[in-house]
């Protein structure tokens, strides 16, 4: 193991801000992007459900 303690690991030899700033931003964006993509799909699904329900109602009224 090359790190003597956890705090040393966090300090990154004095470059903590830069290293964790990079990795943190990367992690954050890679969590946010899939959530947005999934939200887009579930949005599309709910809209579709609404549309199909509306269409079915129309059919029922016609008969």
């Amino acid at each position, binding site marked *: 193991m*090359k790190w003597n303690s956890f705090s040393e690991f966090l300090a*990154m030899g004095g470059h903590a801000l*830069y290293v964790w700033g990079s990795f943190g*931003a990367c992690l954050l964006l890679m969590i946010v*992007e899939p959530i947005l*993509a999934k939200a887009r799909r579930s949005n599309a699904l709910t809209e579709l459900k609404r549309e199909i329900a509306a269409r079915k109602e129309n059919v029922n009224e016609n008969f």
Partner: protein
Amino acid sequence: MSNRIVNWFKFASPQTFYPLAGKMIPWFWALTAVFGLVGLYIGFFVAPTDAQQGEGYRIIFIHVPASWLSMFIYLIMAFWAALGLGFNTRLSGMMASALAPTGALMAFLSLWTGALWGKPMWGTWWVWDARLTSELILFFLYLGFIALQSAIDDARRADKAGAVLALVGVANIPIIYFSVKWWNTLHQGASVSLTRSPSMAQTMLWGMLLMALAFWMYSIAVSLTRVRAIILERERHAGWVEELKELKS
């Protein structure tokens, strides 16, 4: 037209691709996690401290993969665009528009990590080095593509117009890169050449490679998720969409 081509187009139809993509997504997430964890382990615990750059150099484990992917995704985007333009397949255009935001994200990450890496090395957040400058232009190209597609209401026209732009962009990227490089050497600007660092150890290369694989799998997973959303939005009136089990519940 031969039957085989027709069949192939059927396979590439949104209807067959939608469930297929759904089945593939979890696998790509799993691969992302595996490659990412091993890559991070090598990056943080196996790779030695750099003699000149200290611990700050560990940023390359995401900076370099993000740069690679940002360029690679543009190529793939242009490939789908050309396919869509040439064969008029609907799925190709959707793939291209699903890839663009991920590509832009990769370009942004490359710029962000480049800036954070430049600060401890040169004391400034931004250096006009050839790689960062071309990455910035690539980011603008992505933004242009996304802006053009979202400005056009008719989805089919948006696909085709985006395809032309992506192809023009992909033809220009080498020229832009070459120009920026020439400009950079002429002005004797800073040169960020992380990968060519003399202390580049074998383990670092492995770490970078694994992280690049993780980023790649991530990009596939997230753009497949997005393409599924796009398929649903575009094929709203197609009969097969109504038969989906997601809609029955």
